[in-house]
């Protein structure tokens, strides 16, 4: 089968959840004998990674005719994507297009679905309306229009893959899903050999807590940065590695560094790190923390599980489908720094429990969250979609 996958961010230049699973999915699909074209934004060199695996980097076009803002960006990029889709179809042929649910990619998905040339499958993570509301935005103007794009896309698409059961329920809550739309929950995954199960180092002198997140309200940045001083004050062994950057217009990280310079010898903010460096931090840590108020899936929990590390999150969105409270990690009330601090301190105080959770998490990763399983289920779903030539 010849599949076109779109993502605005793609490794090695972008590591958003969609970009990461798209990259892995394309690799496995091509290994299974199918052809995967990934279209993505960038100035980098377009390339044939392997037989049947292409990545096309499209320079961002002039958006002047479309105006500024999220809609202008989405339209400009979708225009390029659409032109690329037509050329790829002419040169190699396309049997099916898969698109993420949100803009900018969704605008291209909608163009493709309305053209009726190829069946379109939407892979749904957080509905656009939800992440905007979670970040405190009011749904009006362009922010509402991008929700309309998503709703329209779901009306025209031939299939819907939801990342988790929670996402599927959220999609139903936000949109009136068409009755005939084929749908399935397929968990995204990582390669089986992404991480290596290794025993964490002893915690006698040092407990390393890794944060994989973004510093914005919906990711629980406020509670996280409020919990850190509480933890550091009570357990002198704890060190934080924070792989999380400020996301405009918020300045949580910068404000914290100004406010608490006294803590900076026990915590490190990492920015612009490579995938190898992230894996090194995952291997070295004892616990991974991501206290998001909402995650449709949460690939960072799976990344930590692939290294056999305990995880801490909140019982929101799809997180409880990944992190089993008390078995592979702990789930704490969102936006509650006291609860978060207590959870970190409790695992820091109990190395055996921490290691046992990591081992159980690793087994769960191998069983449920590999990209090989994701690709098999996805292909079966593609085969079932109506309108495939």
């Amino acid at each position: 089968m010849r599949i076109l996958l779109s993502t605005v961010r793609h490794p090695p230049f972008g590591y958003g959840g969609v970009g990461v699973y798209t990259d892995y999915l394309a690799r496995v699909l091509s290994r299974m004998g199918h052809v995967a074209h990934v279209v993505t934004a960038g100035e980098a060199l377009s390339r044939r990674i392997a037989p049947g695996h292409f990545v096309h980097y499209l320079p961002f076009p002039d958006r002047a005719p479309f105006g500024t803002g999220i809609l202008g960006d989405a339209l400009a990029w979708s225009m390029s994507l659409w032109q690329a889709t037509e050329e790829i179809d002419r040169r190699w042929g396309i049997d099916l297009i898969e698109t993420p649910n949100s803009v900018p990619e969704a605008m291209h998905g909608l163009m493709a679905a309305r053209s009726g040339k190829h069946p379109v499958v939407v892979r749904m993570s957080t509905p656009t309306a939800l992440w905007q509301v979670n970040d405190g935005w009011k749904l009006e103007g362009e922010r509402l229009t991008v929700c309309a794009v998503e709703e329209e896309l779901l009306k025209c698409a031939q299939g819907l893959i939801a990342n988790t059961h929670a996402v599927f329920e959220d999609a139903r809550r936000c949109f009136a899903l068409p009755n005939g739309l084929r749908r399935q929950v397929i968990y995204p995954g990582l390669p089986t050999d992404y991480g290596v199960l290794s025993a964490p180092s002893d915690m006698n002198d040092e407990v390393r807590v890794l944060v994989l997140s973004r510093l914005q309200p919906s990711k629980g940045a406020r509670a996280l940065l409020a919990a850190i001083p509480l933890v550091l004050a009570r357990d002198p062994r704890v060190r934080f590695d924070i792989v999380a950057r400020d996301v405009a217009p918020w300045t949580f990280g910068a404000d914290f560094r100004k406010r608490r310079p006294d803590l900076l010898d026990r915590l490190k903010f990492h920015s612009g790190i490579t995938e190898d460096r992230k894996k090194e931090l995952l291997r070295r840590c004892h616990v991974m923390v991501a206290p998001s108020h909402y995650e449709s899936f949460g690939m960072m929990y799976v990344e930590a599980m692939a290294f056999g590390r305990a995880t801490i999150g909140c019982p929101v969105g799809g997180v409880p489908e990944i992190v089993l409270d008390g078995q592979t990690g702990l789930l704490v009330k969102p936006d509650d720094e006291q609860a978060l601090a207590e959870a970190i301190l409790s695992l820091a105080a109990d190395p055996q429990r921490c290691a046992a959770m990591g081992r159980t998490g690793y087994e769960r990763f191998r069983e449920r969250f590999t990209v090989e399983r994701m690709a098999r289920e996805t292909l079966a779903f593609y085969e079932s979609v109506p309108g495939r030539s």
Partner: protein
Amino acid sequence: MSEPMWDKAQMIQAHREVDDRLRQAREEIARRPFRLPPLADAEKAGPLMTLCDALEMRLREAERLANPLSIPHAGRFLFLQRVVRRIMRPTLEHQVRMNAATLAALRAEVHLLQAILAAQYPVRESGE
């Protein structure tokens, strides 16, 4: 929907806007010529492509951390950007025709540029 997330009348208007903007996009598409960027073969380009990617990532990081036009080394930054994006990329796209000596020279150039970039725009990994 258990709890409406938006005003229904506004949403109807938003759907109309989607139609209008897609029409606009179709008009732009008809006006603009497009050519798919040429493909390099990752297996043949190999380590050079990896180096080019690494350099590109450093440029992006430098762009993200500081406005290149407002920093003291703006001239060098823009020069490096041109080298990578206008010279190295097209060169790599046609690297299959290059001989070993040219490849080695280019690789040395990439290492040098990486060293300059690492010194001028270090990746921040501290609590600064």
